[in-house]
């Protein structure tokens, strides 16, 4: 077929009327061309008092073409120029009728000034932070009640999901957590040795590593890793269950999502995090031991003897006691965020991100609170 590509028209004077013969394909695939031709058509028509649009040579017409022809006619008639259509094929007639130009109600765009929006956003954030705290506390109550109920009535306790989550959080998380702690222990030892060499006090690297890893670094790194690894997974799981109405399905079956979904996950986190922290501590110390041996010739036996004098049980305990609290916060935030997912995939992504960010923030806050507490009681 030898179609003239794209929308075209030719004009000829016919008495006091202008005859515009439209030809080619007045379709939307012409993209910008269809609009520029429609503009030209309008400009050309303005030269006359009376215009005839001859559609006889149009090869293809779609809604965009029909819409633009209608729009041109309407604009002309508003300017007092009469535009008639001629030789319209029957199938085009339906199209021109269905896609006739008329004003459309557009959905309102978000208006308001920029400054006002910033203020409104700030206010909204503050209010939602307050609501988060409120929901978090309410949620904590619900979880504690659910745990207490299963203590009173152990037959209600769901062991299988607990074991499943223990496996995915603790067992499968062990390698990566041991690895990063091993590496950071090694780095810490190396940097410590470089600084302490200037004072000829390299042997104190044992104290440095022992105290830093056991009190703070082991639990902190582990909790951050768990927040990123398991907290995000929990939020995503619960969020997508929410989107698929699975949580609603549980509720109408008379099952409480807190019992079935939340308690096993939070308990698994509370059990896993101390175990992982212990593993992390050992891996970190082992990394420090190897580096001290390699850089300073401190033999493992000397390192371990030094460690015994440098740290006591309380050093280790000051670290590990934080783990369950951090786990609880990770679990609560992950579950609250997961259940807050609504509507769209975008919302799921947003809540997973904020779950991880809030968890890590709260982990560091808890670490700080414990540091102040231990300083206060001189532990």
């Amino acid at each position, binding site marked *: 077929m030898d179609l003239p590509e794209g929308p075209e028209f030719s004009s000829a004077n016919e008495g006091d009327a202008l005859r515009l013969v439209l030809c080619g394909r007045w*379709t*939307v*695939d012409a*993209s*910008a061309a269809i*609009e520029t031709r429609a503009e030209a058509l309008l400009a050309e028509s303005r030269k006359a008092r009376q215009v005839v649009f001859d559609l006889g040579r149009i090869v293809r017409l*779609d*809604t*965009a073409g029909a*819409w*633009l022809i209608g*729009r041109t006619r309407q604009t002309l008639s508003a300017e007092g120029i009469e535009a008639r259509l001629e030789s319209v094929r029957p*199938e085009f007639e*339906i*199209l021109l009728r*269905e*896609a006739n130009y008329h004003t*459309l*109600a*557009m*959905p*309102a765009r978000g208006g308001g000034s920029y400054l006002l929006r910033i203020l409104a956003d700030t206010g909204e954030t503050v209010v939602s932070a307050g609501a988060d705290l409120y929901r978090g506390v309410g949620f904590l109550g619900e979880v504690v009640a659910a745990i207490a109920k299963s203590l009173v009535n152990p037959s209600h306790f769901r062991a299988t999901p607990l074991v499943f989550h223990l496996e995915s959080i603790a067992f499968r998380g062990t390698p990566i957590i041991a690895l990063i702690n091993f590496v950071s222990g090694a780095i810490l030892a190396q940097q410590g040795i470089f600084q302490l060499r200037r004072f000829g006090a390299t042997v104190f690297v044992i104290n440095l590593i022992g105290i830093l890893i056991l009190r703070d670094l082991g639990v902190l790194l582990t909790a951050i890793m768990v927040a990123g690894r398991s907290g995000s997974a929990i939020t995503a799981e619960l969020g997508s269950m929410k989107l698929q109405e699975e949580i609603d399905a549980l509720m109408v079956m008379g099952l409480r999502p807190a019992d079935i979904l939340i308690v096993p996950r939070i308990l698994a986190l509370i059990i896993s995090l101390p175990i992982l922290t212990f593993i992390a501590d050992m891996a970190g110390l082992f990394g420090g031991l190897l580096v001290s041996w390699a850089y300073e010739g401190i033999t493992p036996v000397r390192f371990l003897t030094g460690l015994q004098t440098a740290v006591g049980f309380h050093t280790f305990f000051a670290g590990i006691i934080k783990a369950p609290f951090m786990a609880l916060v990770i679990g609560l935030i992950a579950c609250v965020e997961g259940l807050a997912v*609504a*509507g*769209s*995939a*975008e*919302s799921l992504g947003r809540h997973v991100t904020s779950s991880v960010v809030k968890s890590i923030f709260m982990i560091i806050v808890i670490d700080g609170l414990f540091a102040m507490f231990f300083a206060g009681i001189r532990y």
Partner: protein
Amino acid sequence: MAAGEAIVRVRGLDVDFGGTAVLHGLDLDVYRGEVLGCVGGSGTGKSVLTRAILGLVRKRSGTVEVFGRNVDHLVQGERAAIERRIGVMFQQGALFSGLTVKQNVEVPMREHLRLSPRLSDELAMLKIELAGLDPGAAGKYPSELSGGMTKRAALARALALDPELLFLDEPTSGLDPIGAADFDDLIATLQRTLGLTVFMVTHDLDSLSSICDRVAALADKKVIAAGPISAMLASDHPWLRAYFHGKRAHRIQVLPGISAGADGPPEAGAGGLPAQM
């Protein structure tokens, strides 16, 4: 009308999932300007057939030609050009959940065309109106829509680029009978207005009898029969008899014209259509 050029031509299509054949040796033609209804029991591969034609599932063998081009031999640019001429409405709508209805309709226009914001706004709203949605729904997000509105929004998006070929996967499922009838009318109007070719997977016997020019029945992993609904009603195939003469099919029997056509061989033969196995 039906005797025209085949827009979609499927020959010897084999699709299997994990070693189990879902479709085997399937032949199908969709002619320009017709509404073809695809029927079949649950799990007979109607949706798989649609997805195989669209290239969303891998086929093991066979050829699929769309607009006369074998889809396996297309380079990237040609494939995109062909896909622009196809509109698809998925069963669950598959609207982008992070965008409003209007933005959903504008996605294909924005990606494929360079239109002024004014025209793009107007065309999007026009499509939304054509699909029978209230303009107030244009600013809503998919999660705020009812089932019927989701279907209409999905149809509006499928129509965004004025496609020549439209795939509808169960367009009326989940709609009340009035809504479903409206939707059928809508599809028929659009089909006439825009000169669409429609491939429609459906279970709705009313849709089949009211708007489909031809029906293709899927069973035993292939198209067991294709032809006007009158031919389906007249067929002796046990599955077709069960489907079209079952309890729920009694309604269309009483429709005047259809039941008369059922035993009128001239009409059944007039299609001159293949695959009358």
